[in-house]
């Protein structure tokens, strides 16, 4: 299980989605997020997720999207599993749907779990689709264009840069300690070894800040931008469409699809069992693999 680390990296391409302005894409991300939070009813959100996957298909990034979604699957599955057996919404008067040994799966639990899942899935799909079809530099330029504070933007970009660097540093430290005979017997014993990584990061930030200052970083005047973001007519149409979808969706979510208006989803017992078991396997299975990988490393 070598690829436990997720990399939602930019996938090169020239599809319509790639060519769309990052500003338009960001608009859709915000719109879907608002929609997702407003709607309790899972079906519209599952529909958004499927549309998002379809967009990914036409953009030629479906396999990559699928891989990332698979890595996130256990987390998403965990929501279903936990809600199913211990629903948050009905405390004492939950309706049992089926009994699986010592575990009782509640009707409301499955229903609530599906709702939470759909919310996460819709946001995941749109976020991944945008991240994969937008060059990180363009993303940050877009954020700057909508007046995100310069320093915040810079810090976000810097963090992106530092993740692979820190990963590498951690690997070196682990190699150094293993070369001194250390058998990693758990996270606790590894922790002191990361003191050097933090010390190194601190030194890096110090030197970087001097280097940046020496390139006029502290300037207070208006800054110009090298990375130019286009925002043509098509982009404007897409952005407006996004806003419309967002506004309508949020309204519909609050008015038509709120928790109070959504009946408890009642599935046939066999389907409930299948869904629960599948989610449980994903959830538990990956936890086991993670623990074993950590213990063995």
């Amino acid at each position: 299980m070598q690829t436990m680390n997720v990399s939602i990296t930019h996938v090169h391409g020239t599809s319509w989605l790639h060519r769309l302005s990052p500003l338009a894409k960001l608009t859709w991300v915000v719109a879907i997020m608002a929609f997702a939070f407003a709607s309790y009813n899972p079906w519209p959100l599952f529909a958004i997720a499927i549309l998002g996957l379809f967009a990914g298909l036409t953009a030629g990034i479906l396999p990559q999207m699928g891989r990332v979604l698979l890595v996130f699957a256990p987390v998403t599955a965990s929501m279903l599993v936990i809600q199913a057996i211990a629903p948050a919404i009905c405390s004492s008067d939950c309706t049992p749907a089926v009994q699986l040994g010592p575990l009782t799966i509640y009707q409301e639990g499955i229903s609530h779990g599906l709702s939470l899942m759909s919310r996460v899935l819709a946001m995941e799909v749109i976020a991944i689709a945008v991240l994969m079809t937008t060059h990180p530099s363009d993303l940050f330029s877009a954020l700057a264009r909508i007046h995100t504070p310069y320093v915040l933007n810079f810090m976000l970009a810097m963090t992106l840069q530092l993740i692979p660097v820190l990963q590498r540093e951690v690997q070196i430290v682990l190699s150094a300690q293993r070369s001194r005979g250390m058998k990693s017997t758990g996270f606790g014993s590894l922790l002191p070894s990361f003191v050097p990584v933090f010390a190194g990061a601190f030194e890096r930030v110090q030197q970087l800040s001097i280097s940046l200052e020496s390139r006029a970083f502290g300037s207070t005047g208006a800054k110009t931008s090298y990375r130019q973001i286009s925002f043509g007519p098509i982009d404007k149409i897409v952005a407006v469409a996004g806003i419309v979808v967002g506004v309508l969706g949020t309204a519909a979510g609050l008015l038509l699809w709120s928790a109070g208006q959504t009946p408890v989803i009642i599935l046939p017992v066999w389907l409930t069992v299948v869904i629960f078991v599948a989610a449980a396997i994903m959830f538990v299975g990956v936890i086991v693999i993670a623990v074993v990988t950590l213990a063995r490393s």
Partner: protein
Amino acid sequence: MPDDSAFISIRNLGWTYAATTRPAINDINVDIAQGEYVGIIGLNGAGKTTLGLCLNGIIPHMLMGEQTGTVSVAGLDPTELPVREMARMVGMVFDNPEFQMSQITAAEEVALGLENIGVPYAEMVPRIAAALELVGLTGFDERSPMALSGGQQQRLAIAATLVMKPTILFMDEPTSNLDPLGKEEVFEIALRLNKEEGLTVIVAEHEVEVLAQYADRILVLHEGELVLQGTPAEVFAQGARMTDLGLRVPQVTEFASALAGPGATGLPVTTDATLAWLEARA
């Protein structure tokens, strides 16, 4: 008041970092002419970095401590002008290539300085291309700085500072973390910038053989003080003094000195000069 006749004029310069008792540099007096190639040598901790940071105003604006004496760079006072102004005059390159990188692509790294001083986009593009060409990184625009070799990163760092069109370039042990090829690349660029572009180049380094060959003048720092200065021939001829200071002279100079005996004058400091010197003695 500093003597303005020199391009860079340093008078009684001293700096003590906050929460320390010993000055990092003390009572430094030196003039540097425009277009000079100056080498600075000294043990680690001798004050080379500190001296450099005084030139572009990082000291005293960004680091805390107490300054004595004066610095004048091209008639400007780094203690009065903000760093962002001095940045257009003095370019700085440091010893760890990777620690100077922060952007997602090489072009953006070079663009950073220009963005900070508000250069319009149309002007940025040719300047970035020119800077990349000067350091031999044409075509590297979209590459990730973190994925470059040490030598390439250092050249990118040089480009990122050159793009601001400084007239002075201070390099603080730029090759100490590079492999031999990287070292060659950086020293070649430093020489070309000095000879062809007329930049005043100040390099703090341990590579005395290279400095002996290219530098017009050598400054020797020891425990914060400027103990020796002169042409490479003058400085490296003082073998005994250098040994006391814990420093090396070029191997060929050591060799000539051993052959010629104490008190010898006109010792060669480069391989070619040594060959000529040996012939003259034969």
